[in-house]
């Protein structure tokens, strides 16, 4: 394969264009504000970003199968609340963690069952469970005090260090690696892609489409639960409305990374890069003394700019594969039978 072919292939891999943007941004922010890459600064912003990154990965998996999960943010908040509640009632760290994870899984299961068994639209179901989880957390925080709970073992999930790096970082890396493995190396992952690419064709090929969709919601719930546990560990306090709005940051991060909302195109690490990009922009603005009231606006602009950039790169790459001058529409790619000899199925980032 020629050099051009290799470049083309790498660039067409999901997440690569946005990873380039991330590196450029880090360099720019470092020039603007030399404290940007100081260990304590990096440690803080990554530790803060991890819960949302976990949610982003969960949502990315659901989206890859062609679905959507809006409930992840408030489910993470509720999981944090349940986790702290268990601890405040005297449960051990392990039970506290399991309580948080179980909450997430339960919500994932409810979402998945309502969507597949009752055939209700996933947008509607998860919009409803978003509200239910948020409401349950309000009820919980009204009933019991979840303030300043400090169980040493539990707090060490975030504040502990392994090789000088926060434990939560290692936890997240293991979870991301495991999820990427599931997505690209297992039968489940392959079927998730198949369902996302063409659900009817997958069904004709004998894929248990409802079962696969259900699993993606359970995975997403599990990751929201894990995010909740880490949130609870870091904050030690849970207030009503924790997690509200996280779902949009997560969806934005996944899409920014190159996960297609149409399904069938996604990767765990691309979602992580997309989520990191959003977190990095915020950190960069913060360190440069930009008033936080503008963060939301800048985040919005970043999402649009990032997606436009990603699509622009894809277009150039496709045109190059077709031997056409760049600038033409990429939509004919699907119909072209005899070209693209150098392009392999590039819908996934291989790990």
């Amino acid at each position, binding site marked *: 394969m020629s050099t051009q072919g290799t470049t083309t292939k790498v660039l067409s891999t999901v997440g690569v264009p946005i990873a380039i943007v991330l590196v450029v941004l880090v360099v720019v922010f470092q020039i603007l504000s030399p404290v940007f890459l100081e260990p304590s600064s990096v440690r803080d912003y990554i530790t803060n970003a991890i819960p949302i990154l976990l949610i982003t990965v969960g949502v990315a998996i659901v989206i890859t199968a062609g679905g959507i999960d809006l409930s992840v943010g408030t489910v993470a908040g509720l999981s944090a609340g349940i986790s702290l509640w268990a601890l405040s009632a005297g449960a051990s760290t392990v039970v506290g963690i399991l309580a948080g994870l179980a909450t997430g899984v339960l919500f994932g299961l409810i979402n998945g069952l309502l969507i597949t068994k009752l055939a209700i639209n996933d947008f509607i179901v998860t919009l409803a469970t978003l509200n239910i989880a948020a409401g349950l957390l309000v009820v919980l925080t009204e009933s019991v005090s979840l303030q300043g709970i400090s169980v040493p073992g539990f707090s060490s999930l975030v504040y502990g260090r392994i090789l000088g790096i926060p434990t939560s970082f290692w936890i997240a890396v293991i979870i991301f690696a495991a999820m990427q493995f599931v997505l690209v190396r*297992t*039968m489940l992952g*392959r*079927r998730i892609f*198949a369902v996302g*690419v063409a659900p009817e*064709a997958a069904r004709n090929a*004998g894929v248990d489409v409802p079962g696969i969709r259900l699993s993606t919601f359970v995975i997403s719930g599990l990751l929201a639960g894990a995010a909740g546990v880490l949130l609870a560990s870091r904050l030690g306090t849970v207030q009503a409305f924790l997690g509200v709005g996280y779902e949009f940051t997560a969806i934005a991060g996944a899409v920014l990374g190159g996960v297609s909302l149409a399904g069938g195109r996604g990767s765990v690490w691309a979602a992580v890069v997309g989520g990191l990009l959003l977190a990095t922009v915020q950190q960069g603005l913060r360190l440069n003394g930009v008033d936080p009231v503008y963060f939301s606006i800048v985040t919005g602009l970043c999402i649009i700019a990032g997606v436009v950039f990603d699509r622009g790169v894809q277009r150039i790459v496709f045109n190059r594969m077709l031997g056409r001058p760049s600038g033409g529409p990429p939509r004919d790619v699907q119909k072209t039978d005899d070209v*693209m000899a150098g392009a392999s199925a590039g819908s996934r980032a291989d790990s």
Partner: protein
Amino acid sequence: MIEESTDLAVEPLLDARGVIKRYQGVTALDGASLQVAPAEIHALLGGNGAGKSTLINVLSGITTPDAGTITLAGRRVDIRRPSDAHAAGITTIHQELSLVPALTTLDNVFLGRETSARFLGLKLKLDRRRMAEHVAELAEEFGITQEDLALPVGEFGALKKRVVEIVKALAFDPRLLILDEPTSGLEDEEKQHLFGHMRRLRDRGVSLIWVTHHLEELFGLADTATVFRDGRTVDTLPVADTTVDRLVDLMFGGAAEEFSGTTNPHVHEASSDGTEILRLENVNRANVLRDISLEVKAGEIVGISGLAGAGRTELARVIMGLDKLSSGQISVRGNRTRISDASHAYKKGLAMVPEDRKQLGILADLSVAENISISNLSSVSRFGFVINRKEEAERGDTFRRRLSIRTPDVKMRIGNLSGGNQQKAVVARCLNTEPALVIFDEPTQGIDVSAKVEVHNLIREFVASGGAAIVIASEVGELVELSHRVLVMRQGRIVGRVDGVSHALAQGQGEQLKQRILSLSARSEQS
């Protein structure tokens, strides 16, 4: 440019000439022409894929032709979008109803063309009173009362919906009305009412293009018929001077020549001692399958013939567990089974090459190897869940060589392969499940002649090695060449069973056989 043609006795209202339309290498219209006289009912006939629908789409502005001219009442028209067709006076009533069920009849009739009450030049609200006045008389004529106008269309039956479509079409004085299979979903009595409406339209001076598969309906109603085949106009003739047999002949006559030479029917008899693989007993599915019984033995190819809407694909879907049956029994290898979904069917040894390869067959964004392994991932996995991608690629490569799938690499995205190679990969997917029976639904649709031969040979090899096959195909010539037996379906029933196909072929009776199958599928029981 206005060109007056004076050499015709009656100047045609519509004159479409030399219309060409290609889709990704498939020629849907190959210089077709159609002349429709003023105030006539003009039947447009042809087998599946003859190009009728494409021509209608061209006339109604849904697709733009690659070449050809359309003249309406002596004036060249350029139809690029549906609104152009409307402006020219062409209205189409498509087979799928385009009414909004929740809206009232009145609102449906005026959808997108509403009259608004104005205040200071602003459109404020719909002026329903003016709209109702506008259509009251017309609606009355077609039996739509004032009360009906205010009712949501969703409450009406199939016929009344059809009539609302007609009123909707007529409210804006079309010169040419196109009806695509208008009788589908109608009961006999309702059809007669609809035919009455069509005559009334003709009496009002409207020309009708009527697309239908039901030839016996034409007589006594249509004035002229035009027959399409393979995207070309075969003939235009007065209905009064023709017969069903003549029309069937025109519709399918060329199929025989086209097929000879494309495949090599090394005539082989089904091994008579083949064990029974599949048995259906009195299978019903509400409104689509009626009382289907059949059995398929190892070593035989059973062809299923029928026109569009006869229930062939529906039958395949029920066997594969994709649709539920409402009553009846399915047995696989002698054991009564309830097949709950397709994954279950594959485990039972059934497999399917679906119709509409691009939408329902391939997983376009996955690689060739991934498309082959998807129905039996365990075959390339370790510990029951981890895919061994090396083994997957090797297996894909084995199938690539065995089935001559032309791709530089099985890791290539399948969507980039040609149709024929995609289809061979889908066949490989089925073979990878080591099936006892494979259903091939339109296996050669949209693939070129040489790939067609290869797919045919794959099917023959599969049954020669002890497999059983069900082949659904619209081209009767193809079915006759491939099958040992042919079942003919019409309106959800099996209406004919033709045995000893290869025997008849050997005796040179292929042509008679085809005619028999075609007349069985096209004619109603009475005739």
